[in-house]
């Protein structure tokens, strides 16, 4: 529709349908906690995690570190891996080395 040298056009950007997700709060203290790492398989993530796991134990009193690896970087982690990490860990870091 055009009015006196003006044109009315529509916004092409999509809109998000609101979703409510309930996520537990992160622990304020990592002492005695179990930390998980989800390795995306890209080069050197395993080395980074080895160092981070050591630091978490030494400096923050983390009880255990669980490392799991996806089949490859391009697909989501298997349901079994996610379920295992959710069950065993208090906090999980998703790896994104590249």
């Amino acid at each position, binding site marked *: 529709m055009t*009015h006196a040298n003006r044109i009315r056009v529509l916004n092409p950007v*999509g809109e998000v349908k609101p979703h409510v997700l309930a996520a537990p709060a992160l622990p304020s203290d990592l002492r005695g906690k179990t930390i998980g790492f989800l390795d995306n398989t890209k080069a050197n993530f395993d080395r980074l995690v080895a160092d981070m796991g050591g630091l978490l134990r030494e400096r923050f009193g983390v009880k255990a570190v669980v490392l799991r690896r996806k089949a490859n970087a391009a697909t989501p982690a298997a349901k079994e891996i996610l379920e295992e990490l959710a069950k065993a860990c208090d906090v999980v870091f998703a790896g994104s080395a590249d």
Partner: protein
Amino acid sequence: MTLRSEVLELADSADAVYAAFCERDWCDGLPIIPPTAERVEAMLASVAGDPEESLGPLPPLWREATLEKLAVNAVMAGCLPEYFPVVVGAVEAMLDPAFNLYGVQATTHPVAPLLILNGPYARAIGMHGGAGCFGPGFRANATIGRALRLILMNVGGGWPGRHDMATQGSPAKFCYAIAENEAANPWTPLHVGLGYAPDRSVVTVFGGEGPHNVNDHVSTAASGILNTVSDTAATLGSNVKWYLSQSQLLVVLGPEHAATIAADNFSKDDVKAFVFEHARLPLGKLKLGGMWGIQDWPRWMMAVTDDQALLPVVASPEEILVVVAGGAGKHSAVVPNCTFSRAVSRPLTRLRAHPFSTP
């Protein structure tokens, strides 16, 4: 028809509208057709469904792919209303989980969804599968392909460097849409091979790299041409082979190459078998770079120790798709996939009555 999109009032000049859309990151850098309500309504009238109907949330930002938003972007791309059912069918196909659109949108790899249209609707709307089909000059190809990209950017939210993390991108990300040249195909067209009737109109999306050229000016037998195809399909830098279970190859044979191969009494399955057996790389070469060390291979391939052993780039001949497209000349193309997306096909199911031949 009730439209829900935000309305902007702009100066009614091509320059002003173009500038306004560029400023907002709402276009691909090229001029657009202003998406007025009248144009969007005409687009929507070509498909069954309400404007607010969503085909699903489109990654990576998970915005709803409503028919209205798809239509706004199709108008901007320059689509005629009769092109819109193809755009909608392609979005439906891309939202199949097997296509892994999140990966296609967000990866550093230069992948774009290649749209292939088969069946009578391709002919009805002038979707081109002949000379220069991957290039410019054909409104249906250019605007349908562009509409998909605008949708992926504006609805999906995949902007270069911001959610679309492609290191270099690809010219194929502007527009990547062809018809199969069914008239020049000595075998069955792609959709018939997938089990659809020849008179169905079917859109296929394939998450591929740009076309890799296959120049063979000298071979007069199937084996020669397919040796060249196979060599083109097996390169260290391409994604296929590193994640073997997800690797697919699309072989786009030019009509002259296809005729030569068929004259040797090769079936399409023979083509696939030959390429599967010959598109291989020696273990020693695979060790030189690429994704060596982080590959995802079956146990038997991981156990190979002979550097001379020739390893396949796809898991089986069935992972090789063969279509015929192009015009005169001795060129074909190989389109390797991104290895995290499988080809998906959908019949056009939302067509409303139109002035063309019945699909």
